[in-house]
């Protein structure tokens, strides 16, 4: 190599070719390094996102329809839902405040959040405070064993009841 760079006659072309090759190799290796960095960042993100969480399932059964007589309005604290039965119609309304995730309590007028004072009516519509969205309604269905199933993964249109 040192011979090639020192010579002036036929070696000049060789040196030129070598410079070209060096540049290409340098470019390729930088691309390789850059690519590995990007891959490392992506794999870190994938690593930090759990594939399975240890919290209870978002789909759970809450018992037979008879357990909830008409007029029931009961908060299931562990599941963070409020079960409402109006005549033959059933609904599951979230009790997690849409503002900052506190648990709303059942009040005479609907729901009230203790953290920042958001208030909701009986159907979960915002009536006051900083909450940006109404409380979501979750899908309710009847499992083959006759029990009512709530699916917190599926939000439905507020006001759409399930007929038992």
């Amino acid at each position, binding site marked *: 190599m040192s011979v090639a760079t020192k010579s002036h006659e036929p070696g000049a072309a060789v040196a030129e070719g070598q410079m070209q090759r060096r540049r290409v190799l340098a470019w390729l290796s930088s691309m390789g390094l850059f690519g590995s960095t990007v891959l490392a960042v992506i794999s870190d993100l994938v690593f930090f996102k759990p594939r399975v969480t*240890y919290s209870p399932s978002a789909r759970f059964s809450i018992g037979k329809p008879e357990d909830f007589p008409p007029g029931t309005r009961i908060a299931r*604290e562990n599941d963070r839902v409020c079960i409402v039965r109006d005549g033959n119609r059933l609904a599951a309304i979230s009790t997690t405040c849409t*503002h*900052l995730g*506190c*648990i709303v309590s059942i009040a005479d007028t609907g729901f009230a959040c*203790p*953290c920042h004072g958001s208030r909701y009516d009986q159907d979960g519509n915002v009536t006051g405070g*900083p909450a940006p969205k109404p409380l979501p309604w979750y899908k309710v269905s009847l499992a083959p064993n006759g029990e009512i199933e709530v699916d917190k993964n599926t939000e439905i249109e507020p006001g759409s009841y399930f007929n038992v």
Partner: protein
Amino acid sequence: MSNPIRDLPTNVWNSIFRHPLPSNDLERAQTSFSNFFLHLHPVKVNRNTLRPMYTMGLGLISLFLFLILVVTGVLLMFYYVPSTTQAYDRMLDLQGTVAFGIFLRNMHRWSAHGMVAMVFLHMCRVFFTGAYKKPREFNWVLGVVLLLVTLFLSFTGYLLPWDQLAFWAITVGTSIAGYAPLVGSQMRFLLLGDTTVGQEALLRFYVLHVAVLPAVLTLLIAIHFWRIRKDGGLSRPEPAPARDVGVVTMRIEPGKRVFGLQGFVRGPFTKIGNTPEDSVYSWPNLLMAELFVFALTVSIILVVSLAFNAPLEQPVNVMHPPNPAKAPWYFLGLQEMVSYSAFWGGIGVPGLMVLMLFLVPYIDRGTKGVGLWFSRERLLANTIFLSLAILNVIFIIIGTFFRGPNWTFVSPF
């Protein structure tokens, strides 16, 4: 005749401490230069740097509080378990059975609060003295990052006692993150490792609090300090124009200046205007000042920790948020703003303020009034900064003292 046995103590001592206690200027310089812990200091410092009312030692106090936090934090780690079933019991054990447990926890808690306050005040000092100007722009940016890391460290530590205060403050705090556009809910999920605050969140916050963030903070502090030296030491006023102009008419004799190797280095490294008259040796002047600040910081933390216990509320009850649920005091300004609008209060306004902090040294390019408190030339910049700082403090005061159940306005009197 040298006798290896007889000279052993002297030889060992001299191999560790290469210089005797300095008694002349050369040795003072050598001591600062060759000691690992002291070489952070320049050999000589400008007098202005040592004026207590110029820096108020705020950055140094922040560093010493961080050191106290590292020591007490490592000690607390020996007894703490990041588990939702054990964490709270461990807190009770710390208070009841571990020797000095409650005292160490007090020191850790009050130092953490103190560090947040001191880092903020240090930032105010740097702003009001215009010390972020060229060539110190990037060190200001590093400082803003240090403030954010300090806040995040404090926030992650807040969850660890696993009491009601911890659980609901983190629930509220991470929900704020969820309002960030596009990546908000993903970020929240990554931070918590789950959809709600639980065991995964506790473990993640623990690892962030005891390993990741302290390491990041240590590295950034090292760069921050290194850059103080490389950017020409602490900022100081321009040397006053020679008062004797017009008096000396015969000839102006250039001062005798000796250039070492450093004299040939280009850039801010060369300390222009640092004439022998206005600089003093770091040993013992700077060292004594630092020791004084250290003693003061440690004594205040000790006294406060003896007098006040760190709060510990009821164990976590996922069903019943305390009413009102309040974040740590330095986030109560944020929580107060969040009670008006979750997006603007939690993400929009704070995000804009942090962005402004980052950009300040690149927008405000004036060179006047550096190194002076509230200089007249910087009236506009200082007014804007002071208003925003006071606004934040007012929000914090409202959130802390004037908010009762359901976040309604109450009078503390």
